[in-house]
């Protein structure tokens, strides 16, 4: 299945959802004073945020590619 078939808007939704969940977990990790809070932040929250940013950047690449196709 091609990413262009999934749709740029859907990619944006996935990206937003990943970023929101990651950021909520980051708030939890900041308010939780426990050694595991660092693990929660570094391995779960930061990974989800990073993945969300990556999906967003991917959507930008496909948005640019579809614009190029439309011009041609």
């Amino acid at each position, binding site marked *: 299945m091609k990413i262009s078939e999934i749709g*740029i*808007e*859907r990619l*944006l*939704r996935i*990206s*937003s*959802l990943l*970023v*929101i969940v*990651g*950021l*909520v977990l*980051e*708030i939890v*990790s*900041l308010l939780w*004073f*426990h*050694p*595991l*809070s*660092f*693990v929660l*932040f*570094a391995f779960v*929250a*930061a990974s989800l*945020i*990073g993945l*969300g*940013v990556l999906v*967003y*950047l991917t959507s*930008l690449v496909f948005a640019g590619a579809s614009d190029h196709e439309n011009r041609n």
Partner: protein
Amino acid sequence: MIGVLICQIVLSIVLASVFLIRPSLTHAASWKILAFIGLCVLPALCIVGGMNTHVQRSEQTQFCISCHVMIPYGQSLYVDDPGHIPAQHFQNHRVPTDMACYSCHADYTIYGPLKDKLQGLKRIYVQYVSTPPDPAAIRIAGGFKNAQCLHCHLGARSFEENPVHVAMMDSLKSEQDSCLGSGCHDTAHDVANVSHLKMWRPAQ
């Protein structure tokens, strides 16, 4: 400081929520810029800010003794005996009391803080996945280095003018003799007996 970071995170969540509900907004140029800020710039800044806060927090005494096996080590800071090196440093503010563990146990080399954090992750693994050791059986890998003591004491008048220190200065610097193991300052955290020792109660 943590309040500013949480405000930044909340702002980022609000922006990301807008694009979760209405992704079609990004067809307009100005919303594209806002999407870039909300889904890329702000989340990246939140990761940096979060990492910074967690690293600073992990240097606090309260954080170190929040692990069950470290509780007797925290108690040993209150032993009412000047012969106990950690207690003497903590009670006389020779180290910042809120960073007492980190001040003496940090690796002061260039990649030291990174090594410390990786070591900390290993300890979390041992605590929660493997079998945590008995507190009295915990030993620092490679022993306690003189460099940790000399980081502060080297150059201090009372240290440099002490005839015993003068006589052994070279061997202390080269780690041939140990500050703790050579029989001079040999009582560190006596966790095996900490429950039987007299404790200092700071005045409120």
